[in-house]
């Protein structure tokens, strides 16, 4: 009997069929390749969020100088690997201009550098490797597939092996290196050679040797998958004469004598010195604690501790004012700004262990009391994703030296990695995520938690990143709608959020609420309306989530991420992008004035969201495309009342 071989399924690629044309296969492969590249780059970011990713060169967002530096760095990496015989993993911090390596000895200085410990990227690498294995099998079923597909897969595998730290010679890792017999490649070599020759600091003085360096660089560039066009542009751009950048530097050491605050120190030095200068203040806190404890239980009150800390803060302010009144005034101004509520909760939670230490210091030692405090932490915190354990320590070297303040990108806005407003960069990002195909999502649904959330917000765990943990986008949309209709669900969701949890997507009340709602919506608007609504909301929400999450760090490029812009196509355009020219501000009114929300182009008020969503949800007339100014809140309230009565009769309330 002939064995039935199941078809190979590769995420994002069409199922292998004999009727698929070469163009279809290539097109699908390119899309998938973008996703794999995104994953690999994500691995780099997992290791070091500040690393300069070579994919930026693909979109021209790196300057010619930066591309040159990165190419030199890669060449240096390869050279070191060849010399030492050790596989190294070298990461570049584009802002701090230093690097963290693993088992690397600088052959020139003899210094040894070590990589940060505790970084487990094996899962990420395995994920990409599985994709590549599947892709190879997929490609093998198409005799018309071109070799470059296999070449790209080889390149990805080679890079994965480097990321893993395996000792693989360059030629073995990248068997399809630069073909010097190819006329296109020869032209690139000539351009690169001329560029090196023109720079007296990079030129070897020999045309032939410069050519060898050019070939090495281009090989490294091919590793980086820089397209020919970008490489040629980089080669043709005049390079300013400057010393070759070697990113292998020791981490900065602490500076300053630690006794006075800097007055006009450079940023990095001033930062370290300021950290050192805080020593006396912190030491004073410890001394105060000892003194308070020694004065007996009557003196050791909470009020005394609070007053003591306040006094220390006041003295810090006084010292700053004496050292630099301008800085002091700025600090005073900054101290008056509001901290977002959820963020403030997270900060307080991070400080609770210190508060416990203080209480310990003045004699509170009963373990049971701290257990009570620990169990009440969630109730005390307002952040939904506050850490439950003590904050992870900063790596030793950094803590001792003082963390340098990371400066934002300085350069043309088009090269700013945070500047995502332009459709082409957004498209580039989406292609990298493999989510869009000619404007439509390839995947039916996705969860951002594992694949994307940690990538874009690895440390902060911003509670405004959607979808929420454990939810698919569709599930989030459904849960939100159910919560609007069922106040019990909403209360439970809010309560759980305060405890750092989320309402289960599988809560039977959600499904039943939606069933009842579907009956009413379809009855009122026509069969199929509810399903269309969910589908439409989900698709638009996915777009909005990607854009909004992407822009969380830059408020001036922020696009409203909520269904707000789903319901105002005139202002936001049919695809959900905010159209600044069309509208700056909108006012929502309900016929009963229950809700009046105003949203500005940079954000919405959270307290209006639920009411807005409720009103908008059930007044969306797909057939007529009504906007928010025609809200029928009476119908919504009627539906809600009926649904809640039914739920109560079924014991679900």
């Amino acid at each position, binding site marked *: 009997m002939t064995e039935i071989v199941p078809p190979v399924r590769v995420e994002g690629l069409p199922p292998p069929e004999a009727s698929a044309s070469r163009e279809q296969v290539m097109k699908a492969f390119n899309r998938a390749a973008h996703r794999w590249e995104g994953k690999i780059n994500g691995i780099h970011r997992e290791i070091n969020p500040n690393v300069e990713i070579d994919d930026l060169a693909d979109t021209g967002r790196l300057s010619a100088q930066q591309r040159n530096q990165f190419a030199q760095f890669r060449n240096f990496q390869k050279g070191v690997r060849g010399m030492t015989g050790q596989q190294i993993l070298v990461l570049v911090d584009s802002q701090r201009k230093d690097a963290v390596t693993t088992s690397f000895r600088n052959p020139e200085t003899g210094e040894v550098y070590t990589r940060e410990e505790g970084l487990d990227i094996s899962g990420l690498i395995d994920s990409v490797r599985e994709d590549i294995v599947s892709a190879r099998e997929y490609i093998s079923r198409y005799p018309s597939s071109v070799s470059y597909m296999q070449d790209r897969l080889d390149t990805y595998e080679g890079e994965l092996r480097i990321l893993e730290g395996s000792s693989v010679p360059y030629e073995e890792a990248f068997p399809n290196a630069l073909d010097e017999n190819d006329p296109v490649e020869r032209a690139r070599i000539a351009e690169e050679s001329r560029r090196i020759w023109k720079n007296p600091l990079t030129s070897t003085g020999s045309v032939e040797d410069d050519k060898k360096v050019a070939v090495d660089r281009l090989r490294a560039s091919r590793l980086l998958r820089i397209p020919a066009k970008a490489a040629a542009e980089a080669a043709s751009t005049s390079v300013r004469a400057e010393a070759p950048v070697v990113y292998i530097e020791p981490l900065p050491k602490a500076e300053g004598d630690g006794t006075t605050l800097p007055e006009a120190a450079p940023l990095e030095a001033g930062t370290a010195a300021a950290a050192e200068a805080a020593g006396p203040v*912190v030491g004073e806190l410890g001394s105060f604690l000892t003194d308070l404890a020694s004065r007996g239980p009557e003196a050791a009150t909470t009020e005394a501790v609070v007053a003591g800390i306040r006094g220390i803060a006041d003295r810090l302010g006084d010292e700053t004012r004496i050292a630099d009144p301008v800085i002091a005034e700025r600090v005073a101004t*900054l101290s008056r700004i*509001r*901290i977002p509520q959820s963020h403030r909760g997270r900060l*307080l939670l991070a400080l609770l262990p210190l508060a416990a230490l203080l209480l310990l210091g003045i004699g509170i030692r009963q373990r049971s009391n701290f257990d009570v405090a620990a169990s009440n932490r969630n109730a005390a915190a307002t952040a939904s994703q506050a850490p439950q354990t003590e904050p992870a320590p900063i790596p030793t070297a950094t803590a001792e030296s003082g963390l340098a303040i990371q400066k934002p990108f300085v350069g043309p806005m088009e090269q700013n990695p945070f500047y995502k407003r332009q459709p082409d960069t957004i498209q580039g990002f989406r292609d990298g995520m493999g989510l869009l195909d000619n404007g439509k999502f390839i995947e039916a649904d996705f969860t951002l938690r594992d694949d994307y959330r940690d990538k874009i917000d690895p440390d902060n765990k911003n509670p405004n990143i959607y979808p929420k943990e454990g939810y698919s986008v569709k599930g989030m949309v459904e849960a939100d709608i159910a919560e609007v209709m069922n106040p019990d669900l909403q209360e439970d969701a809010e309560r759980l959020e305060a405890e750092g949890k989320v309402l289960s997507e599988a809560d039977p009340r959600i499904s039943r609420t939606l069933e009842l709602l579907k009956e009413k919506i379809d009855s009122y608007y026509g069969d199929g309306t509810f399903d269309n609504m969910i589908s439409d909301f989900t698709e638009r929400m996915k777009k909005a989530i990607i854009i909004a999450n992407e822009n969380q760090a830059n408020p001036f490029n922020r696009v409203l991420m909520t269904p707000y812009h789903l319901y105002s196509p005139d202002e936001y355009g049919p695809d959900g992008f905010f159209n600044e020219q069309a509208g700056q501000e909108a006012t929502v009114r309900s016929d009963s004035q229950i809700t009046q929300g105003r949203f500005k182009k940079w954000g919405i008020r959270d307290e209006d969201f639920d009411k807005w969503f409720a009103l908008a949800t059930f007044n969306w007339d797909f057939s007529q495309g009504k906007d928010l100014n025609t809200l029928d809140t009476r119908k919504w309230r009627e539906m809600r009342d009926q649904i809640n009565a039914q739920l109560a009769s079924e014991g679900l309330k």
Partner: protein
Amino acid sequence: MMNNLTNDQQKISEQLLNLVMQKVYTRIAPILTEEDMVKIEDLNKEDMTGNSVRYFLLSKVPNFDQIFQEEINLLKKQLESQKT
């Protein structure tokens, strides 16, 4: 003596937050310009939630949260060394 530890911890945490934020602001203040400060004050008036200012600060100091964490760790180190 101390009867309600949760409330006590909260009060002390609030004061510690003020102290830590002051130290963080002292470190980042030198890199902000006068224009930045004007912008911050405007955003603080405009956005009641505080999100706009926070994002603005993050755009100026991308590792703002890491600095905050470092200040907490420094404080904790000193307190642990003084614990009786």
